[in-house]
């Protein structure tokens, strides 16, 4: 079966800084795949290249078998790609509901009411606060909003960049539960995490990124047992 996402030999630069050095990976339909790695390894850069905010100098990115390397970022959304960016990046001066409506920008207006209800089922807190200005939400609520907003576009592939960052353990657990629920509902997931333990425990497969290169790729359960991974990312150094 053709992978839903296939990234081949991408090289990404920030000016003269070579941030991603020829990496390749794939995500199959229905999988949860995680990218783990230390600060500055290139996880965010990778996701932003897939979503089109950054461009690769080489290689290709294919979504559902079609090369999207030259498709502008905003047109990739309609092809089923959604990203919950690092640091949430919700629209702070807009209301909760307006943020969700922006998530549905590529959708026809007629379905929005139903999609809002679906998001509110996942995140009841957002329903109570739908008129509130997003900048006044708590950190956890902002993360929920960022996820809800991404869901509004009915993504085939949802990419999450450190959804647990800065959240209390109980909220982290909740966020991971929701990721699993979304997955069960048929969304394919590419998850970037520093919380390697949590990410690997829900993922099917994982890639370990180090200074712009993939140094390990394996089943999640195997990575959890891998000595090098345990030492570098699971031995209490995961934050």
């Amino acid at each position, binding site marked *: 079966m053709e992978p839903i996402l296939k990234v081949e030999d991408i090289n990404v630069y920030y000016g003269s800084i070579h941030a991603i050095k020829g990496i390749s990976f794939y995500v199959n339909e229905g999988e949860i795949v995680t990218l783990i790695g230390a600060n500055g390894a290139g996880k965010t850069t990778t996701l932003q290249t897939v979503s089109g905010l950054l461009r690769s100098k080489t290689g290709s990115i294919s979504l559902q078998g079609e090369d999207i390397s030259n498709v502008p*970022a*905003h047109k990739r959304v309609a092809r089923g790609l959604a990203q919950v960016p690092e640091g949430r990046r919700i*629209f702070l001066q*807009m209301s909760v509901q307006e943020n969700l409506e922006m998530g549905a920008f590529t959708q026809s207006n007629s379905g929005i009411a139903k999609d809002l209800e679906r998001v509110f089922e996942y995140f009841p807190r957002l329903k109570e606060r739908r008129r509130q200005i997003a*900048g006044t939400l708590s950190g956890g609520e902002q993360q929920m909003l960022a996820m809800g907003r991404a869901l509004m576009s009915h993504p085939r592939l949802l990419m999450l960049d450190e959804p647990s960052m800065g959240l209390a353990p109980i909220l982290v657990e909740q966020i991971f539960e929701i990721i699993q629920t979304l997955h069960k509902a048929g969304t394919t997931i590419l998850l970037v995490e520093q919380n390697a333990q949590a990410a690997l425990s829900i993922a099917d497969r994982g890639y370990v990124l180090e200074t712009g290169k993939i140094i390990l790729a394996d089943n999640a359960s195997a990575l959890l047992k891998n000595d090098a991974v345990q030492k570098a990312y699971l031995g209490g150094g995961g934050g």
Partner: protein
Amino acid sequence: MAFLSFLISGISLGSIYAIIALGYTMVYGIAKMLNFAHGDVIMVGAYICFYATSRFQLPPLVGILLAVVVCTILGIVIERLAYKPLRAAPVLAVLITAIGMSYFLQNAALLLWSSNPKVFPPVVPTGKISLFGGQLTISYVTVVAILCCIVIMLALTWFTSKTKMGKAMRACSEDKGASQLMGINVNGTISLTFAIGSGLAAIAGVLLCSAYPTLVPTTGAMPGIKAFTAAVFGGIGSIPGAFVGGILLGIIEIFAKAYISTQLSDPIVFAVLIIVLLVRPAGLLGKQIREKV
């Protein structure tokens, strides 16, 4: 009664400033740049309307419409050619380009239309409303300017708070990257903002030249700077701010002219701006920047 008459003139002049300031502030909000050529788009709009109505004898409404269409296209073209290639450039480069664009438009107008002042035709019907048994007279232009400003303000408020494109515009002004992740075409949205701002500039140009009917290639320069001042005064980036800033500036200017000195009115206007910015650096209605970490 004189006071009331000055107040109304002030609001009317302020309405024109506000319409121009809206263009400044919307473009600043989304492109984070000061489009110093905005004032000169006003002048182009006024010339288009002048030629359409005086030379080609078209009806005033057609002249105004033509001015709006030409300025809208001009705004889009200016952005595409001059500013878009500088999206990632340092602020100073963009600022200098904008000033260059302003001079370019003024000199192009000089070449095309010469420096001879044109007498702007009365596209707004001349005439006065007489109140209180003739003690208070208000010209139609004064009233039309105020009405235009109110209608534009209401329309923009509706547009940015209720329509999908308007909300997308606000989203882009907050975070372009995140907006792209929503599927919003950021370049298209920026073009749209320039289009709206420039279309409004054309209306302002017609109103301005109807109130002060001498048209030269530098006609837009001073009102442009005043409107920019109004936008900063109200809080740059804020639509209600541009409205409030414009009206206040117009009132201050007219009162300064009436009660203090005609020559000193401009220094007074700018002195007020400096004082306001010292007290409230973000302007009267400037957005408080808050961020969660």
